């Protein structure tokens, strides 16, 4: 008998509190698996956001800090400067990273802080009950955009990967998705690459992952995956925007 798949040591035994079908869980697992596979679990320090993933400090089995809303990149900067040899990462939602924490992510990129950010873009504020995020699509409804996001008053969604790719020291920037198995595999590769580049000390590394929020999108988990694929990907194209080879 061979084990084809089992729960990674990168996760504790605590059960996720996420809603049924929420892809936060998949992303957690991928990050944890990468840490385990790269042998980094004992040296890793993660930073939890404020968002649905706030309790991820209970799920990842490595050392964790829980940061104020949006400030994970600043917290990670403090951690990494103190522990330059550790694998440091932030796990952040689109409200956390792209809205309140926009300055922190831009500046961690600018300084080339040697940590990895996992950016979970679900086009909504999950935890607080479905408010508009900077990444909410035009026309998409949210509790603070009850008539759908109005392009003229609230603008168009922020493409964070494209924006950070303009910053020299953001040496790895890639957008992936987890809506099916091939994309889950690609997502894992991108996360692995990001950690590898981090450990080489080359600069700031960033993986944007498109994710679902069945609860606040008002859809079943399966409908949500479809909606992601059909609506998010056209506006948030998948692919690599920056990698270290290009930098050198």
């Amino acid at each position: 008998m061979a084990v084809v798949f089992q729960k990674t040591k990168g996760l504790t035994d605590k059960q996720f509190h996420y809603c049924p079908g929420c892809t936060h869980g998949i992303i957690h697992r991928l990050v944890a698996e990468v840490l385990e596979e790269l042998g980094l679990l004992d040296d890793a320090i993660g930073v939890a956001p404020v968002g649905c993933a706030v309790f991820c400090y209970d799920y990842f089995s490595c050392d964790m800090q829980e940061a104020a809303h949006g400030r994970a990149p600043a917290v990670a900067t403090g951690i990494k400067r103190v522990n330059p040899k550790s694998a440091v990462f932030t796990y952040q939602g689109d409200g956390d990273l792209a809205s309140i924490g926009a300055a922190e992510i831009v500046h961690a990129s600018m300084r080339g802080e040697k940590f990895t950010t996992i950016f979970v873009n679900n086009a909504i504020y999950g935890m607080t009950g479905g408010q508009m995020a900077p990444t909410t699509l035009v026309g998409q409804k949210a509790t603070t955009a009850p008539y759908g996001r109005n392009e003229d008053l609230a603008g168009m969604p922020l493409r964070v990967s494209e924006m950070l790719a303009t910053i020299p020291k953001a040496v790895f920037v890639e957008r992936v998705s987890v809506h099916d198995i091939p994309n889950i595999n690609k997502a894992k590769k991108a996360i692995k690459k990001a950690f590898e580049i981090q450990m080489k000390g080359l600069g700031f590394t960033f993986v944007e992952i498109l994710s679902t929020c069945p609860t606040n999108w008002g859809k079943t988990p399966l409908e949500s995956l479809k909606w992601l694929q059909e609506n998010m990907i056209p506006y948030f194209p998948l692919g690599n925007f920056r990698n270290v080879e290009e930098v050198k």
Partner: protein
Amino acid sequence: MAKELWKGNEAIAEAAIKAGCKFFFGYPITPQNEIPEYMAMRMPQIEGAAFVQAESEVAAINMVYGGAGSGARVMTSSSSPGISLKQEGITYIAGAELPCVIVNIVRGGPGLGGIQPAQSDYFQATKGGGHGDYRLLVLAPSSVQEAVDLTQEAFDMADQYRNPVMIMGDGMIGQMMEPVEFTDVPKRNLPEKTWATTGTKGKREHNVINSLFIDPAACEKHNIHLFEKYAEMEKNEVRVEEYNMDGAEIVFVAYGTTARIVKNAIATLGKEGIKAGLIRPITLWPYPSKTVEAAAAKANVKAFLTVEMSMGQMVEDVRLAVNGAKPVHFYGRTGGMVPTPAAIVAEAKKVLGGAK
């Protein structure tokens, strides 16, 4: 070591380094710029140390959170508007019980205000500018030497209680030069930082730095735990200077540079035959309430006169301590204006009911 002339800001920075502070996260603002500038010069000379100019005060305090959570001795500094921006971060640090040192070189407010010396951030520092129930240890040096000594000890205090410590100076403390001797302050017996996030190294359960307690019962329990700690601080850490208190008929209460000006006034009053004393709180929190209370109980003491560079903030703590036993008066200048000894003398005479 012989005494040397040091500028307050630079002396504080050097004292921090001497106390083992290896990480400084800050953002420029007058009148404390010499602190980050000095750190930018010194940190690269120290193995494993780092100076980071943060993108903002908000980022700086959260870098402090991360660094302190990893067990390092970490400092940040700013002045009033910047400290206001740090309030969320400060309450997180207090909530997560992380040791760190925060310097506030206070300037005139409110808003953009001005850049001259002030003491109008007393409430913010001692009652909690951030939300929730928490306390900072707040130290108020009145000379550059004292700033140096307190800064060094601040790191030990922070580590002992796992609590942020604030050094509260004003533009004068930051900008003036005075003779300084860097002595080794006695080191405290400190617990190991077993809670710090440094990687599990496969040797322990994962550590979590956190201030979230979603279950209100757990949140209350955590608050009670914090207040037990604060009670310890109140028991152990109160510091106060009593000056010329023997037979004083009027007792000044003043801290920081204002207390020095009051001392000039006391000298003048003495020459005119008026016995005046001074209670100078060195810890603004925990407040030396007992000292004030004891003074209020003395028969020779007729009245208290609190002098501040504010519209009247610490005077509330004086009133709380005096608790009606004696009249408590207030004299203040604010917005960057500094009281003169002459004005204080005049005010004291007024309190005592006309010239004597």
